[in-house]
Structure formats: structure tokens, C-alpha cells
């Protein structure tokens, strides 16, 4: 990928992100944050590649730590968001 193409992706995704988020009700700010936080754990796939190549012991150790931290971020983030959102929707079902 050329640098220009990468920068293009970056800029377009930033604009898209802003468009997606602008009108979110306050009720959802916390789940939105923890959910998007889980998505930022995408760095996990980078960790998988850079660890899996097994270049040197140092890079493998750094990579293992990276995989672990990122997985905590991803798994914990999605689970806790789901827990919160279930709280919101359980109540709605009970009312209906």
C-alpha cells in the first residue's frame, strides 16, 4: 500500500467516524465508548502477525505481551458492553 493510499483511508475513516457518532443520545455514551474501545483492540491482529513470525526472542516476548493486552481489551470490551446493553433492553422487555 502506498503512503498516499494509507493516508486516504485514514482521512476517510476519520470523517466516517465523525458522521456515525454525532447524534448519539447520552444514554448510550458509556456503551458506545466501551464498544468502540473494544474495536480499537483491532491492534490485536497486528500483534498476531508480528508475534507469529517468531523473528527473535525479544520480538516474540513483546508480541506475546501485545497479544495478551489486546485480547483483554477486545474480549473484555465487547463483553462488558453487552452486559450494559442487556441491562437496558431487559427493562424494556419487562415494560412491554
Amino acid at each position, binding site marked *: 500500500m502506498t503512503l498516499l493510499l494509507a493516508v486516504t483511508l485514514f482521512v476517510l475513516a476519520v470523517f466516517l467516524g465523525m458522521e456515525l457518532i454525532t447524534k448519539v443520545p447520552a444514554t448510550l455514551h*458509556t456503551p458506545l*465508548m466501551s464498544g468502540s*474501545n473494544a474495536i480499537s483492540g483491532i491492534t490485536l491482529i497486528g500483534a498476531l502477525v508480528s508475534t507469529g513470525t517468531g523473528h527473535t526472542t525479544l520480538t516474540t516476548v*513483546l508480541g506475546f505481551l501485545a497479544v495478551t493486552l489486546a485480547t483483554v481489551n477486545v474480549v*473484555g470490551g465487547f*463483553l462488558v458492553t453487552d452486559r450494559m446493553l442487556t441491562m437496558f433492553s431487559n427493562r424494556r422487555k419487562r415494560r412491554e
Partner: protein
Amino acid sequence: MSTPDVISIGYLVAAVLFILGLKALGRPRTAPRGNLLGATGMLLAILVTLLDQSIISYGVLVAGLALGGLIGAALALRVQMTSMPELVALFNGFGGGASVLVASASFIEAVDLGRADNQLAVAAALTALIGAVTFTGSLVAFAKLQESLKWSGFGGIQIFNAAGMTAGVVLVVLVTAQPGEWAWLWALVAVGLVVGATATLPIGGADMPVIIALLNSFSGLAASATGFVLDNSLLIIAGSLVGASGLILTRIMCVAMNRSILDVVFSAAPVAVVGDGDEIYEGKIASTSAEEVAMLLETASRVAIVPGYGMAVAQAQHAVRDLMRTLQDSGVEVVFGIHPVAGRMPGHMNVLLAEAEIAYELLLDMGQVNPTFAQTDVTIVIGANDVVNPAARTDPDSPIAGMPILDVDGSRTVVVIKRSLSPGFAGIANPLFAADNTLMLFGDGRQAVLDVVTALVSG
């Protein structure tokens, strides 16, 4: 179809799932599905990544995934809703930390193989800086939220931070200019770790929603920068989506406090309490009892409840729910007025009240609730202070002048439940407590609300 093609297509589908997921997370009805879409995208991304033929040692990967998955699940399933800000701070930090490690490992490998060029170096340097700042900044925010860290820095910390950030920028240039010399990168990581911590130290509790949102944005930007290091389109897209959404939330929080982000990050911590609260209010405070409040509520037709961080500290949300139900059973209309920065993270109060099974239709934001205070008989303020301080409206010299507040003083009677007259985070006296239509109910938030409920039921 070749393996790289399969991976690329998998990444494209994952990116689309992330976009749809974020969009769905913005509406109450679709939010659970949005989270599921995001998680599906992530799973797909992980699975196709494992097809990568440069991966030769799966053992380490499986160990890391299993260990991280266990820790993450344990944290997510056991956390109390009151501690949600701490957990989100911690996860932000882990994401940032992972990005630093990935970028460093890839950079070292590239240097060893003689493939490190300026473009790779600048991307690695930016990842190292943003990721390291996110990592320690989040850990300090976590410790401050837990109140296990009370230290808010040393004299001249702002100058120290400015110097640290300058050093960071210089090191980014050095890493870029001499890509073969990876010692610069370690120095940069070290500086980032220090500055992340010292920049977060002076930030007080009331500013936490801004900082958590900002660190959320940073963790996304760090992932995006990692994408430039690895030449990975999905990292760039997903990271910048999160970076952008975090910035939007940061902006919403800043607007709600009438402060700029630079002001929050760089201004010195507000001066602590000027004198004792008791002297300021001497003779003007009307103290009340649970029984008196119950009598007021019995004759009310509309009641507004305004919660703040103190409600979370006192774990009073279930007691508040009981109060709401008791009032509703006798035909009183109850609404909740939520200030955007009430609590320690965006939407914190909404989550707590949802946990206590209070319908979100009753949670009114500032714009909805403010025009209704004039028709409200009793407003109960529990654990909120600065966000209901009329000085923001009336006193142009006040440190919070111009901050949008909940105009609770417009209701017929205001009951403030509070432990003592100590000022809030901003260290500013609150004229609301001394107002003619305000009654102070002193005590622990949870116990005070329960006492009122008991008085209502037995009365």
C-alpha cells in the same frame, strides 16, 4: 483465490461490520446488535489473520489469546456498574500498550532485516508516542478513579509536561531521521510513558469524563498508527473510526463544561477549597429531616431527581429506584435530570440508573429537563454539586462561569442530599445550598433516600 486475497476480503468485510456496528450502537433499539456486529467483525479479522503464511509459531499466539481472553472476561463479568469508568480506562490503556508493543516489535524486526525506511520510522515513532501516553495516562486515570492514587502532581508539573512533550516531538524527528538507530525509539517510549502519567496526574475528578473520552480516542489513533507501521488497511480504518468517535465524545464533554480541551489538559488543577464551607453559608442554611421531605413529596405532583457522582459513591441508585416507585405508586410524576458530565465518564449516570431498572425514557438530558423545572414541585439533588451551581449563570468571576447547568433552583422546592457543606470538585461555594427554596438533607445518600422512602410508606 490466494491466501492474501482471502485475508484482504476478510478485512474488508470486518471493516464494514465495524462501521455498521458503530452506527447501530448509536440507537437504543439497535445497540445490542451493533455490539454483536462489532464483535463478529473482530472475530472474522482474527480468524483470517491466522491464515497469514508468515505466522509460523502458533503456540505463543494461542497462549496470549487464551490468557488475555480469560482476564478480559473475568474483568468484564465481575465489574460493578459504579466502577465502569475504571474498567474503560483500563481497557483503553491496554489497547494503547498493545499498540506500542506491536509497533516496537515490528520496527526492531524491520531494522534487523534492513527494511526500516523513514516512512516506517515515522509511523512507529507516532505509534510509540501516542500508545505510551495512552497506556500510562489510562493507568493513572484508573488509579485516580479508584482513589488509590490521591497525589495530583508537584509544583511546575505543567512546565515539566511541556518539556516532556517537546522532548517527545524531538525524538519522533530523531527516530525518523535515523531509522537504523532503534535506541531512539526506546527513549521515545520512555518519554511517552512519563508524559502520559504526569499529564494525567493533575486532572481532577470532575474532568475525568473528558479525559476518558480523549484516551479512548488516543487508543484508536494508536491502533491506526500501528496500521501505518504494518501496512494494514483494517488497522488504519478501525483505529481512525474509534479515534474520531472518541474525539466527538470529548467535544461533547467539553461543551458541557464550557471548557476547551486544551484548558482541561493544560490548566493547573483548580485551587482547593477556599476556607471552610460552613463559614460561607453561616445562618443561611435550612436543614431538614426525612419526614419533612416525605411530607413535601406527598403533596407534590411532579418530582425531578438530579443525580451526580455522589450517588455512585453512596451506591444509592437502588434506593433512588425505590423512591421513584413509591412516588409513582401514589400518582406523582417522576423524571431524572442528567447533566452530560455528571459522574466520571460520559453516560455514567444513565448506566447506573439502568442497572437499577429505571426506564431510560425517564432520563432527561439538560436540554429536555431545564424548561420543566418551573413546573416541578420538588427537585431532589443527590450527590451532584457543580452541575447545579447557579454561580455558573450569575457570577461572571466564578471559575465555572458560563458552564451550562441544570437550573434546579427554578423548581418550587429543592432538596439537596449531601454529607456536608463541603464544596464540590471545583472548590466553589454553591449558592444553591443557601437559597430560600432549598432544604439540606444531611447524611449518606443511600441511607437518606431510604429514610425518605420509609417515611413516605409509614406516613
